[in-house]
């Protein structure tokens, strides 16, 4: 199924590893075996964000299936933008509040020479920067959210703050996330390690290639 969807998309996205990006498990249903089966009356919440509807095929066995062709387009746009920012020596900040991927994202950031914030987000980090850091600090030019939710399944504060400070954002939006304030949303799964590793690999590759091009080396 994955192969059929991906025909006509870039070389790098083809492969069996993308299969896990197709299925989206919702945040609070991750950890237990009854994860896939959750009933709205029990939780009392609507777990799918309506704005995500255009990006989904629908749901099967209570798991939302994302349309990968749209994902591929959005991902290409996002990576292109990231490449341009990196080419112009912009500061890129990776943000995620998923504790299982915190180590991976920090390592990715270190390897591409960019910055990461996978810890508790203090209130005025972007909006009150001269006080929180030192006067004369330079804010990030792009913020990449590997998961737009925080640990209590609410939207990450960084999205709203980045919008306030006119900082463009790229975000992997799952079906229970709000894609409105994000400049380059990428509908996709943010739960599985395989998907996360793929995204990290892609962003690292893009940034490294952009920087190499800047330095005049061919890739």
């Amino acid at each position, binding site marked *: 199924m994955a192969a059929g969807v991906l025909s006509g998309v870039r070389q790098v996205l083809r492969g069996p590893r993308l299969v896990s990006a197709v299925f989206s498990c919702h945040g609070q249903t991750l950890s237990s075996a009854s994860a896939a089966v959750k009933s709205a009356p029990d939780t009392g919440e609507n777990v799918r964000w309506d704005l995500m509807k255009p990006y989904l095929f629908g749901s099967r066995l209570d798991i939302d299936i994302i349309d990968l062709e749209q994902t591929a387009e959005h991902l290409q746009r996002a990576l292109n933008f990231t490449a341009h920012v990196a080419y112009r020596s912009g500061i890129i900040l990776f943000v995620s509040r998923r504790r299982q991927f915190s180590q991976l994202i920090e390592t990715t950031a270190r390897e591409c020479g960019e910055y990461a914030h996978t810890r508790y987000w203090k209130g005025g980090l972007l909006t009150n920067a001269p006080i929180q*850091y030192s006067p004369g*600090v330079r804010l990030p030019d792009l913020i990449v959210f590997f998961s737009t939710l925080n640990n209590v399944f609410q939207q990450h504060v960084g999205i709203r703050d980045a919008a306030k400070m006119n900082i463009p954002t790229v975000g992997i939006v799952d079906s229970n996330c709000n894609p409105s304030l994000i400049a380059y949303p990428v509908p996709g799964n943010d739960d599985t390690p395989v998907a996360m590793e793929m995204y990290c690999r892609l962003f690292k590759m893009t940034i490294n290639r952009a920087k190499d091009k800047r330095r005049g080396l061919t890739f």
Partner: protein
Amino acid sequence: MFLVWCILLLNNQAKNSYEAILHDISGQASKEIQCDQNFCLFATPTRFYFMDRPPFRRANKLGLPVRQIYVSSSLWKKNLAAAGPQKFTQEFIDKQVEEFEVGKRHLANMMEEDPETFTQEDIDRSIAYLFPSGLFEKRARPFMKHPEEIFPKQTAIQWDAKGRPFHFLFYTGKQSYYSLLHDVYEKILAIERHQDKMRNKGLFTSDTKQILLTGSRWLLKEEIEENLVENISDQDYMRLIQLMEKLLSMPYCSLEKEFILKFRKQLEVQSSKYEIPALQYDPQGVAFSVADGRRKTAKASITLRDSGSGNITINGRNYLHYFPVLQNRVQLMFPLLFVGMMGRFDIEGSVEGSGHSAQAGALRLAISRALLSFVSEGEVEKMRQAGLLTADPRIRERKKP
């Protein structure tokens, strides 16, 4: 210049704030004059006013009269509290280090010792000799120490010329702390991979060399803050300790032994602080030890001789004559009673000063100290816990109206 170093011990901060205040006062006066001068020159070029307000009416653009509000000097005062802790530049610190080294050599020359092998203890000794001070507070006495120990460690500017921060976790706010957590977790993962490799080879054993943790404690939150040059909260500290404990719980944790020991502080064994008087021998071969003790203003000196029969002589007289009061004799006998060596020793003591009770207390301390050389390690700890080795710090309180 090194004398400045020695004498300018105290409150660098107090000194600087005093200077700042002086500067401010002079600054104020000049500002007032300047203000008036400029104002006057602008308004009436022909007249010159000095410290007086000119008697004319100003008008704004609309032609309406405007009352000039005179700015007070409190607005010009530098808000010293808001400036935060004093920041030292790296060049300043380097200059101080250079001056310290030069001063150290001068001091060695003055004390007629070799400048090459002049250690910090020698410096302390020389300063105590050259500047004797009777101040009780040890930290108020003159000292000469390396600038690293005096100036608190500070964070330098965190980013380069283009504005890009150096550290990849800069935007978290607590870069050193989170980077430390990242490293610890990295080590945990590395050890897990090592374990898996050993399991694959079939060499996995649970009884590997464990790190010795007895006699040491985890560094306190303040000590870690000092190391990281950052403030961390209690929860952060607990999280760090949890991660370290997790690291320690793994079978192959001995791979990261030095890393873990960096976060442990050795506890000094309390009883080893006491210096045990050396056991000396008579020409007859009888062992004896000499010790001193003090209480209030009384000073006592005791010679404890082995193979005796429990005779106690103080200032040449028998203790029964010297201390008619039972309480004082009990004080003398208590150390021997405690270790169970009542009839074994002959005690010869001399005491002077204060009253009979204080003299008895001084003698008791001296006997306990002399006993240390006849007694085992465990007994020393027991004596310490019984309070026999602690000098009583109580002195007479001064008279108040």
